[in-house]
């Protein structure tokens, strides 16, 4: 499946369940290589990439996500209908040669809507979820590592955001954001941001708290590990310790969180749209399509099944890639599940 020159080491890592045998083989191969030039160690990032390439999940998931992205970008090239262009001759028509994905009650072409909706949802999902995970990883590990007053502050912020009724707040804020002129001058730039960016930030900023708590607690136990102490005694700075030791060791959690977060963000966008903060008609997103399609699931199944199918495929793809990435970062993954 993969072509991994110069030495397919990642491949035989997978089969080396028994380290001593692996080392022996390893030495033999390298004795051969030593003759031409001195050995250069490989950095972690290259090792992880190598290992990633050997995971079938990575390729399957990657291809699924790539196909969906390509469809979103170029799918409308082969369609005659445009977004919001109603076809007065076919209302509620099932998928056909004319309307690939069928039409809705007012003759809108679902195929055209789908490409546009996917663009929007992919953008939101792929930006908001990593944003939330990043915030969680950064604040969580920093609070756990530094402790003291910084931890207390972070805890308070997390608890505050957790108890605040987010939707009510957004309800109050969103009319103001819709008319930026009414905002105080130093806040007006927020109102002029494109609505999708606003959505990304709103979703990102309200969904990192629980993960941050988990990361924080993990960090507190990792911090006492001897390799972290060793790094500190070497003089490695706080941020470097977080990046090199803490975050990679909680990466499994973070990756799962980010993968699930994609789904979360896409669905959250739907409810936010309801409050007027998100995507407003005539613009469409996967969320709005699903919302509209739910009612028609029995009578006109294509309106529901097609957007839902795309969502499921997308999430499966993301989950598979996340799974592969997690295994690539965790060197013991093969041993543990072999």
């Amino acid at each position: 499946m993969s072509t991994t020159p110069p030495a397919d080491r990642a491949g035989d890592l997978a089969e080396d369940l028994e380290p001593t045998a692996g080392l022996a083989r390893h030495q033999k191969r390298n004795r051969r290589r030593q003759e031409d030039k001195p050995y250069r160690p490989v950095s972690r990032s290259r090792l992880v990439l190598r290992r990633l390439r050997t995971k079938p999940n990575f390729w399957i998931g990657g291809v699924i996500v790539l196909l969906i992205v390509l469809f979103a970008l170029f799918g409308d090239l082969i369609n005659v209908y445009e977004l919001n262009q109603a076809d007065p001759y076919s209302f509620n028509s099932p998928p056909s040669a004319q309307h690939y994905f069928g039409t809705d009650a007012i003759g809108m072409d679902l195929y055209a809507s789908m490409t546009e909706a996917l663009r929007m949802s992919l953008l939101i999902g792929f930006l908001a979820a990593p944003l939330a995970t990043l915030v969680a990883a950064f604040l969580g590990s920093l609070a756990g590592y530094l402790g003291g007053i910084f931890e207390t502050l972070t805890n308070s912020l997390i608890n505050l955001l957790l108890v605040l009724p987010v939707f009510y707040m957004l309800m109050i804020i969103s009319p103001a954001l819709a008319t930026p002129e009414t905002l105080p001058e130093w806040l007006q730039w927020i109102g002029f941001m494109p609505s999708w960016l606003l959505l990304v930030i709103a979703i990102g900023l309200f969904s990192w708290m629980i993960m941050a708590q988990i990361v924080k607690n993990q960090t507190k136990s990792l911090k006492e590990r001897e390799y972290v102490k060793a790094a500190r005694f070497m003089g490695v700075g706080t941020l470097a310790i977080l990046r090199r030791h803490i975050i990679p060791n909680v990466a499994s959690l973070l990756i799962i969180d980010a993968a699930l977060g994609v789904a979360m963000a896409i669905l959250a966008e739907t409810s936010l749209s309801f409050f007027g903060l998100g995507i407003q008609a005539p613009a469409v997103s996967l969320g709005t399509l699903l919302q509209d399609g739910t009612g028609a699931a029995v009578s006109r199944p294509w309106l529901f099944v097609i957007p839902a199918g795309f969502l499921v495929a997308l999430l499966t793809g993301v989950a598979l890639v996340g799974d592969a990435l997690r295994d690539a970062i965790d060197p013991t993954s093969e041993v543990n599940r072999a």
Partner: protein
Amino acid sequence: MPEPLLQVKDLTVTFPSTSGDVRAVRGVDYRVDEGEFLGIVGESGSGKSVSSLAVMGLLPTSARIEGDLRFRGQSLLGMTDRELSALRGDQISMIFQDPLSALTPVYTVGQQIEEALHLHHKGLRADSAHKRAVELLELVGIPGAERRLKAFPHEFSGGMRQRAMIAIAMANDPSLIIADEPTTALDVTIQAQVLEVLQTAKEVTGAAVVLITHDLGVVAGNVDRVAVMYAGKLVETSGVDEIFAAPHMPYTMGLLRSVPNMLTAGEQRLVPLEGRPPNLAKPLVGCPFAERCPAAVDRCRAEEPELEARFGDGRAVACHRAEEIAAGTLRPEDVFPRPEPEQREVAVREDAGPIVAAEGLVRHFPLYRGAVFRRVVGTVKAVDGVDFEVQPGQTLGLVGESGSGKSTTSLELMELVPPQSGSLVVAGKDVSTLDKKSRLALRKDVQIVFQDPMAAVDPRLPVGEIICEPLTVHKVPRQERDRRIGEMLELVGLEPEMADRYPHEFSGGQRQRIGIARALITEPKVLVLDEPVSALDVSVQAGVINLLEDLRDRLGLSYLFVAHDLAIVREIADTIAVMYLGRIVEYGPVAEVYEKARHPYTRALMSAVPVPDPVTERSRRRILLTGDQPSPTEDIPGCNFASRCPLLPLLDEERRGRCHGEDPTPVRHGASRVACHHVDSIDRLDTVDAAPQPSVTP
């Protein structure tokens, strides 16, 4: 021959796993006679615990157990759990390794002892159970038994918990006690106490004891017969004297030769037993030890030897070359030759002053109480004014029980922050005068190697990046870094090509070498070694210690070697500092201190260390310390050690008063410094049987 108490025949235990069946025990035969003391020895993973858990019927249900287990003629394998339960705790009882998790935290110790009694004596009245519990607790040497019964396990120290476990084990006068590494988690002074109690338990109940351990010293002094286990099979069984005097199987030889002996260490190098046990999930061909055996011949690799009594002296050996060994043509020193001593040419640096000098170093931790309003309720005096020096090219051994402050002392050196009190000079620089930049520069000179090889290296970093981490701090260019990684790996006896493997692919000993390579890459002057070998199997220890010695001499390093193993300290150190409750009680050249310890604590510590030689071990006088170390939060007037001092009861009233009233300061005696008022009386410990015995009331 009388009927054996326990007869194990062809026991095999297999754990199914997705990567193939793990054959943890592969055909073990042994017998335990009434009242016998059997020791089962082996490295971790040899199957010694699994085989005894099988006897107890305590293996997980997924395990497949085959063979024949008979207790007094009854087959144990055919029994239902109910029948086994009637036997367990009554006829057969078990003492586990971890006294912390073996007792239930929510019941008092008394309730747990009484429970053991009630379970097997249905009609027992509460008051007689209570009386028996008091008796048992007194028997295992816990003072104030009546009161202590009401205590919860967390109020007990580790040693006391293990005694309570023994009390529970002997509650119903069992005929077989299985002790699974009962002292591994304990300090050596506590270990001596617990072993003493175990002997008492054996005498009182007349039970046979099976002691499972990896420590040959513990075996030497206690058991009658030894069974050595390797890769799920017994490889040699014999009387304890015979096996130590003349091992007939190369594995036993290697094990015995690799163990440092406190009485003789330091004169010659240790003999490493390289390699590691085979993976039991894979099919084995030939003798499982052949891969590590220097005496292996072709037959060893083709055919697995059976455990056979070949010589008619009660000894059974599983080795194809046992006849040669018995005839004396294949001697242990031929199989495992002692490595040539490396010429000790210490490359002492020009500035010949001490490389580390601490004076009156203090580290106190405030103790807080309360969640909202935190207030200081006391101080933990972890390090309470210690003086020591590390000379260039030399090793200072820092020993003491856990909680004595030895690790805190070494971490204080690593922190390089101004001490709370006293002074600390490292490589000629007073650490209290350092600014941020010079502190970072100084960190190059001081590196550390940690105890636990599993935790000391980041499991998610490739070895190369782990090793060069110190260099990234000092902004060494990539090319240079890569070159140094290879150099360092070779220096510690690994291959440069191993740089892009992950830590989990290495064994404990190899991982410890990785830790050493990381510490050496900045070319430090001082290395702090915080119990660097205590988490390793004995066979691996020797190799790491030899490596450390070589590196010190070749690179002119200085070590601060923190350890609780006095044999290893004698092997590697030049100077020794004995710590007790945050103070150094004795400080002096290794030769002198081991020859003639002047502080009663040092004496007691040394006498508690078991020596892997049954003849010496039996004739040694053991000074047992009573009780446990006091809490470091206590304010003790006078000598810290007075509460446990074995010398104190031998002194007259007036001199005792001095111990309780006046805090001893270190005074020079010979080449050592000793913090004791009565150094002149120390030899009384040899003449009088000072060990206060627990009152035995059978």
